[in-house]
């Protein structure tokens, strides 16, 4: 992990309050039967989140999981914390109210590609741009699962499905581009089939203070089986996926012999070697990742890299810190009290021009 893995350690109630007793994974499991299709990628995400929770050292009652509607959004029922399964697309708005009301809570938003980017696109963007401390986990299975297989805003163009029997004509949305456009302070990506990486990313998100989004590629084995497999299958993934590390060059390939170089502002895949690969490219020519750059320019460029032109980047694209919405709101309240004094009802109702009738 990068040197600033825990930028806000201890500074924030929501991200630091210690639980009295050390909790275990089990403490975060509810009695509700998990109701996803057998083989659904959601199970793996649930497992990793439940695994990470105790590591955060937060007591259960301080944690709230808020979701919209979708298969993914049933998530809160399975987390033994406070939870709110809201309505389609609105989770960020409801979560905003929860966090603004009580900044001591650690507030998670669980959403799907339809929930977050179709009906909920606007709330998603506005929550991110306000930098309110919400930990948004976006389950991207490139399909509407719960409604049984219509295309979503992340579905590949041309994909045939229930609502587009001749193939989808919409151009897909890149969730990360949206996050960068909203200048989100934390942006990451992981995958259901990469438990280790996934749990690390969940932990990074948990420790970030400010609005953060983690896109998780998730396989819907019923309605969109294998949509990620052409780059994520065991035998090809080393050559088709790239793991970002802060301060490290963008290297990939089984024997780390390929990398990404910038040509102007366009990334290009190059093969390298000590003695310089084809036309003598060495590691030093490669793009070096910087999560913390104040401007999202580079993250935006890397975020747009897609299979097959490029390896698919995984990891933390951006992690910077900016004052959060809830803190600024709190500051205004404190300074209002400091200047005007704590509100007095007496004063309030007697304000303005008054007169006596006797």
């Amino acid at each position, binding site marked *: 992990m990068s040197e600033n893995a825990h930028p806000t350690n201890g500074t924030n109630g929501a991200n630091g309050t210690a639980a009295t007793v050390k909790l275990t994974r089990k403490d975060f499991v509810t009695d509700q039967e998990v109701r996803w299709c057998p083989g659904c990628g959601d199970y793996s995400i649930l497992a990793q989140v439940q695994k990470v929770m105790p590591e955060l050292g937060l007591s259960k009652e301080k944690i709230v999981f808020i979701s919209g509607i979708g298969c993914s959004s049933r998530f809160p029922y399975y987390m033994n914390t406070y939870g709110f399964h809201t309505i389609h697309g609105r989770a960020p708005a409801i979560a905003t109210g*929860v966090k*603004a009301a009580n900044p001591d809570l650690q507030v998670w938003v669980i959403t799907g590609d339809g929930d977050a980017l179709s009906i909920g696109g606007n709330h998603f963007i506005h929550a991110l741009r306000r930098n309110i401390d919400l930990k948004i986990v976006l389950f991207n299975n490139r399909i509407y699962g719960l409604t049984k297989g219509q295309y979503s805003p992340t579905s590949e163009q041309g994909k045939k499905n229930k609502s587009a029997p001749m193939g989808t004509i919409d151009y897909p949305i890149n969730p990360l581009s949206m996050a960068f456009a909203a200048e989100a302070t934390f942006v990451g990506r992981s995958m259901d089939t990469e438990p280790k990486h996934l749990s690390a990313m969940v932990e990074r998100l948990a420790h970030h203070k400010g609005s953060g989004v983690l896109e998780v590629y998730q396989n819907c084995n019923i309605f969109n089986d294998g949509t990620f497999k052409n780059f994520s299958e065991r035998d090809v993934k080393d050559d088709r996926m790239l793991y970002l590390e802060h301060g490290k060059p963008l290297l990939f390939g089984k024997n780390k012999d390929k990398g990404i170089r910038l040509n102007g502002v366009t990334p290009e895949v190059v093969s390298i070697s000590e003695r310089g690969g084809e036309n003598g490219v060495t590691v030093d020519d490669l793009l070096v990742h910087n999560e913390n750059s104040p401007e999202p320019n580079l993250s935006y460029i890397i975020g747009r890299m897609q299979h097959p032109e490029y390896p698919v980047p995984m990891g933390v694209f951006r992690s910077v810190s900016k004052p959060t919405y809830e803190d600024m709101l709190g500051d205004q309240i404190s300074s209002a009290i400091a*200047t005007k004094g704590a509100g007095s*009802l007496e004063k309030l*109702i007697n304000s303005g021009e008054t007169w006596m009738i006797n």
Partner: protein
Amino acid sequence: MSAVTIEDLVKTKPLVEELETVTIRFAGDSGDGMQVTGSQFTSTSAIIGNDISTLPDFPAEIRAPAGSLPGVSGYQLNFSSREIRTPGDEPQVLVAMNPAALKTNLPDLEQSGILVVNTDEFNANNLRKAGYQSNPIEDGSLSGYRLFKVPITSNTLKALEGSALPFKQQDRCKNFYALGLMYWLYDRPMEPTLKWVNEKFGAKPEVAAANIQVLKAGFNYADTTELFTTHYRVGKAKIKPGKYRNITGNEATAIGFITASQLAGRPLFYGSYPITPASDILHELSKHKNFGVKTFQAEDEIAAIGSAIGASFAGHIGLTGTSGPGVALKSEAIGLAVMTELPLVIIDVQRGGPSTGLPTKTEQADLLQAMFGRNSECPVGIVAPSTPGDCFIMAIEAVRLATKYMSPVFYLSDGYIANGSEPWEIPSIDSLPEMKVHFRTEVEGFFPYLRDEKTLARPWAIPGTPGLEHRIGGIEKQNITGNVNYDPENHDFMVRLRAEKIERMQQDIPDIEVFGEKTGKVLVLGWGSTHGAITTAVEQLQEQGQSVSSAHLRYLNPFPKNLGDILKSFETVIIPELNLGQLAMLVRAKFLVDAVSFSQVKGKPFKVSSLVHKIKEYLISNE
């Protein structure tokens, strides 16, 4: 600010003709400051002990071209030595600052009423903009009125000769010249306005000075030139002794909800998206952060109510406010609050519709939307203030019911109440209801959908409470456990339970009162902002010895216990509404009484005279 008593103010003046009630309207271009002029006349009148009622009238456009008809802004006020409840049907006095103002307002002026015009503005250009072929103040077409021609603009500039102010600002003072004229005509003291000017323009002394100079110039002009043959006096009204302030409905609403949150002991969270005529509530609340009030300007109405629901889940007093179109957008989320049984107050400051409709005009046509505007059986409480001052009380009531019954409650105001103002007797804090809210903390025996026997409310168990971790959501819940549940019997049970919970509010709301005899020929039943007009009309008829009473609903869902009996005690029930008969439909369906709907949908309040006229039909027909 310390209270000013009348003694400080009322100077001994030459005796003058006494009047009981006067209705004045100031009308001019949006840029002419008619709202300030009107509100100054209002507070001065209040301070000297008149009863008052006002009706501002803004143009829909931000600022239509100067001198144009849509650019006209008006302010009507009614002041009296007796109790009054409406801004008056027809002004007896009209001050028209330009031709457009004359054109749009003259039709309302009573026959042979006083008409003061600013002659300087009646030039060819302005006349054309107002669509006049010939100059009305010349061509004798105004012979039906007592016309007073005053070169207000030039007199204003004369009065300011030598002032350092730029021309534009000098010109802006002309509304105070008109105010001065009216102060003299109705024998008002200038002190309160002088005081106000000095406070308001404290920073800009030369502006303050100019306004004062012009005000006095207007006053003296009327005094010295025998412009008006007589002048009038309107004595003190017999008003309940106490401390008063002038308040608009939106102010009282904002203050009321802050008060409610203080009484409840929980911070107020207001999630809103600006919309006319509700925006001022957001503006007002955002000024009171020192009460811990959190205002959140959301990206839209859905996020606004969503955030309020979240805040209420987290233990704040969740409040969201908008007007009709915004309520339509909030519909789905209101259903979520009903299903999750969270306290929530939805403010709807109703305006003319449908769709964008008449954004700045008043209407009462969202009652059925509040009742039924959601998918499936989705009951909520509904309250409606009846006057600007009443907003303060009903805001508290809305929060009391919402938190006690763990349910969304609608608060139906309208554009007329919101912008209209009345003198408000400032209540004493301890006269206000006890309503501390209780959060569940006992882990023992906790279930998210446990029921309070009396109210059927579920426990309010907020995140952060150890041991009460639980999940809620929009899917049907099993009673008690709150688990997702698809069982047919449970669904039927829960649908009826949610309805019953709202019905139970009845035990917590006051009976409806009858104004007049408890039985008789005609009962006039109203709700919301029609209170003033209805009561005035009924009072007039009662004074003529007619058998008519009125009753006004401030609680619309559920209805007060005694409503049914009252309806049955009259031969005819008339329900005047600024819609096509929405309350009438609910009453007919519930009580099977053949209630008569009297509807007017003009974006304006009822005239007392039209109500009197309508009611009489039934008094006669019943003889």
